[in-house]
């Protein structure tokens, strides 16, 4: 136990924290509070004569009965379930590859960085052309081998596959960057000792690389999961949610309700639900990491 600091020092501490605190309050806490507050009102810009009456949980009740909301939630969960492990696996492979002792490191690093640096919506547009039925590279490729062209973006299953491929391509490089940093912090001596003991490459990977990489994997997973919950740009650019609403995500449906239908009350309720889902998902990870940190 340290002796308690004198008051002036503590006051100084608060004073130094204040700017950050105010900034956070302004750009995080206030909008989130405003969002939750709006979700209890009817705010429809298309019908201003309705006013903005307090409706309690009506917007949430509407979501409960809204099939399209459940569909969008289901799609979002599907994208998380596929693209988070998918990009982890691909990203780990890329990181191992980039960690090999290349003579020139920068071309490898650059190749890793490029997809990450590309704006999401550009990635979506590029892959939309890739998967285009008539003009796309993918169909051109498979028809050269005598297969029939696939209606990638107008078939719900195919469209989901195409979107997942794009998301994994786009997000793997970020995973790889984080994991590469983790790989480089593993002491070489561990591998040398394993060599001496006659451990195979696979055993080295399983017993040294993976356990040492766990903290980096967790960091990567948290960031990736949060962005996966918010998936918007890529399906928006590739299919616009179609065919029908079969590839629509929660973020897209929120955007549709607010910026398209101008129904800010209902949109806020949906956004609040998404916020809660994000909090639950990340706190799950955080608790797990804290527990494993406590074990050390």
């Amino acid at each position, binding site marked *: 136990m340290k002796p308690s600091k004198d008051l002036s020092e503590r006051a100084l501490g608060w004073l130094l924290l204040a700017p950050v605190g105010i900034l956070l309050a302004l750009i995080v806490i206030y909008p989130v509070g405003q969002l939750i507050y709006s979700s209890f009102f009817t705010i429809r*810009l*298309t*019908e*201003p004569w309705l006013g903005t009456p307090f409706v309690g949980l009506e917007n949430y009740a509407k979501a409960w009965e809204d099939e399209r909301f459940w569909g969008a939630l289901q799609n979002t969960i599907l994208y998380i379930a596929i693209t988070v492990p998918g990009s982890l696996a691909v990203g780990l492979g890329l990181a191992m590859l980039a960690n090999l002792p290349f003579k020139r490191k920068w071309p490898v690093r650059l190749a890793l960085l490029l997809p990450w640096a590309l704006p999401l919506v550009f990635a979506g547009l590029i892959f939309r052309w890739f998967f*285009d*039925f*008539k003009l796309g590279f993918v169909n051109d490729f498979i028809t050269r081998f005598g297969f029939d062209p696939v*209606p990638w*973006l*107008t*078939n*719900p299953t195919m469209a989901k596959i195409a979107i997942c491929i794009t998301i994994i391509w786009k997000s793997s490089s970020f995973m790889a960057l984080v994991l590469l940093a983790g790989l480089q912090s593993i002491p070489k001596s561990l591998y040398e000792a394993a060599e001496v003991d006659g451990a195979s490459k696979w055993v080295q990977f399983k017993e040294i690389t993976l356990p040492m990489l766990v903290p980096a994997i967790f960091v990567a997973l948290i960031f990736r999961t949060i962005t996966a919950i918010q998936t918007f740009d890529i399906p928006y650019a590739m299919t*616009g*949610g*179609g*065919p*029908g*609403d*079969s590839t629509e995500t929660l973020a897209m449906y929120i955007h*549709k309700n607010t*910026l*398209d*239908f*101008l129904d800010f009350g209902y949109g806020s309720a949906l956004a609040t639900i998404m916020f809660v889902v994000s909090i639950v998902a990340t706190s799950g990870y955080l608790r797990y990491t804290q527990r494993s940190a406590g074990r050390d």
Partner: protein
Amino acid sequence: MKLKKLALAATLASFIVGTTAAWSQTTLRIFTGGQQRPDVMRKIADEYEKRTPGVKIAVEVGGATSEAQQQYLNTVLTSKDSALDVVLIDVIRPAQWAAAGWAEPLDAYLGADKAKVMSQYMKAYADANTVNGKVISLPYFADSQFLYYRKDLLAKYKRPVPKTWDELMETSQIIMAGEKNPNLRGFETAGAPIEGTVCTFLVPLWGEGGDMLKNGKLNLDTPEARQPFQLLGRLKQAGVMSPNVGEIVTDRIRINFQAGNLIFAQTWGYVWNRSQNDADSKVKGNVGVAVLPASKTGKSATCIGGWQLAVSAFSKNKAEAVKFVRYLSSPEVSKMQAIAASHLPVFPSVYKDKEVVAANPWFEFAGPIVETARSRPVTPRYQEVSDAIRSNMNAYLSGTKTTDVALGDMKKRLEPVFK
């Protein structure tokens, strides 16, 4: 002494005049879509700048589709941003703009001239721009959907321009079988989840004698409401329509038609000019434009389109903006657009103008078609209506919903709007 005073006064006067001239320099910002020929808008704006000293026009170009533009405008206007002075809006939007209070009503500016000004336009456009008796916007150009066809291919196979959808299907199959070109399809219309797909649904519905609303109530429990699905389903199944119709957006139809990959297309007026003048057009001189086919029992119907000029309620230069809008919505500009972009005029008189007809021979019969073209449902909640129609039509065309499911889901989403 007197002279000196005079010189001083003169200098002072010229200084004041000079600064007021600099002060009175106004820049008006007009927003237009990428598909509404911003290049032509720029030329018209240049002409206006020449005539109106002290006014500069900045043309801001938005997204390629009507809904992409409106989504952007929604963010600008809900935040009451004064950046835009004049906005080009789709014919379906005045009701929404009036309800949201985004458009400056023009009645006060038109004053005693209101009735006279509005009576010059084709009636459909005078109506479309008036909401609850208030003039919300003024028409920039008219539009409706037509049947584009390949004159050369019809002549080669000695087929007439189809009057019914059955004829269109039969002719398509004959030509496709004869040409043996795997890239050639018979017919195309918008099928992606975009605004144009609403017309893909409404045209066959109207053609069969049906309508979406009856006395303001939803009216889709009729046999006619099944017609759009049955017709387009048949065309797709027969291979007349491409299997990827679910990803076809408006301008893609023009691209495919211009590349020589379509015999027939259901699309808007602008395609004529592009198919005749674009360097990459393979169908120059071989394009015909006609009325859309009818069903066996019904009458041909078409969707009204066109773009309107609204003055933003948040503009800081409303008076100047209204003057500019009055210029853009004049017979003179209507004629400039007709020649430069095959934009259909909003004044009956311009259709008969010699130079206009020389550039667009089909305008002679287009006028009456535009006059009888029908409006998509008018409601401030139009975006929800549009979304219900286009997403279910898109699901049906992509083969993921049957007629019953698509129509049922469409009704379920439309009911709360028209309750």
